[in-house]
């Protein structure tokens, strides 16, 4: 590379800087971006926990059994695992934006996220929080119009006979 080229690049850029043609993006731009990414990441995690818990709740209420496979498949909300996978992809994409993520093994990060989600969902399930959610919380508006479930008089979930 010639010295002329070096001078050209340096002069060209510095002229643009001095003339104001090149301007730095303000700090708030990056701070806002980081906050939005972080909120997105947390939102994805909460969404995943909620959907996983919902799946557990349905399976728990429905119960396993060979004879029930058809009815389970009929009413199983396929959109939940699809959404969950989409959330994982979105979460991972967001995670890659963070400086630290590439320093760790990505498989460990993904495994940790999945484990944390499963444990959180299980705890919610064991504490019976999902029952409360079903009655009064975020699940109350879900349409359970399947041939498997019905809502009892006291708002409890029952299997149809």
């Amino acid at each position: 590379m010639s010295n002329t080229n070096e001078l050209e690049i340096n002069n060209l850029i510095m002229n643009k800087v001095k003339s104001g043609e090149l301007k730095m993006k303000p700090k708030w731009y990056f701070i806002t971006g980081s906050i939005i990414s972080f909120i997105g990441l947390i939102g994805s995690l909460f969404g995943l926990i909620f959907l996983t818990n919902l799946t557990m709740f349905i399976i728990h209420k429905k119960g396993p059994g060979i004879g029930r496979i058809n009815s389970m498949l009929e009413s199983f909300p396929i959109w939940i695992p699809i959404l969950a996978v989409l959330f994982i992809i979105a979460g991972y994409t967001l995670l890659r934006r963070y400086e630290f993520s590439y320093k760790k093994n990505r498989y460990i990060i993904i495994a940790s996220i999945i484990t944390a989600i499963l444990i959180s969902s299980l705890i919610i399930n064991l504490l019976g929080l999902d029952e409360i959610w079903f009655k009064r919380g975020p699940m109350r508006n879900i349409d359970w119009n399947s041939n498997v479930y019905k809502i009892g008089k006291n708002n409890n979930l029952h299997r149809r006979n």
Partner: protein
Amino acid sequence: MDEFKNKSDEEIIDMVRKGNKDLYTYIIDRYEDKLKRYANYMLRDEHKVNDVVQDSFIKAFINLNGFNIKMIFSSWIYRIVHNEVMNIINKYKNTTYLDINMDYDSNIDIEDEYVKEKLISDTHKCLDKMKPMYREIISLYYLDNKSYEEISDILRIPLGTVAVRLKRAKLIMRKICQTQMN
């Protein structure tokens, strides 16, 4: 202005961000040759190299407030050049690279210093035939003398991956060089 020559990159960047924009010229002076050399290993086209380096300095300046002053500026600017280079490589994807099927026999203990000297002398002839991902890591480690940590920061890959990729690159490089000599 000589007082600034002894300042670290990060100190100068901090001053540029605080309004002393003229000092950005020191950053360009310090990195222009290094970045051109790095981009040249990857692109082998002087015009494209100049464009990439110029665009990288411009992008770095525009996004200077996004740089974390606690990090190493060198890795940050190399990362920008890496992204620019990859954009160009992806744009001209039709180039074919030598893809040698080989077994990665890890029992072979390579003498690092010998390999280093040998590689530097043969690198320029063999680099062009390697895939960009291997060419890049060889360039950074052997030609730009970057540490594993710095390469990890530039390529955004874990340290373990740096080691594995470098080991593969060395084996591929050796194979290509041997084929070339024969």
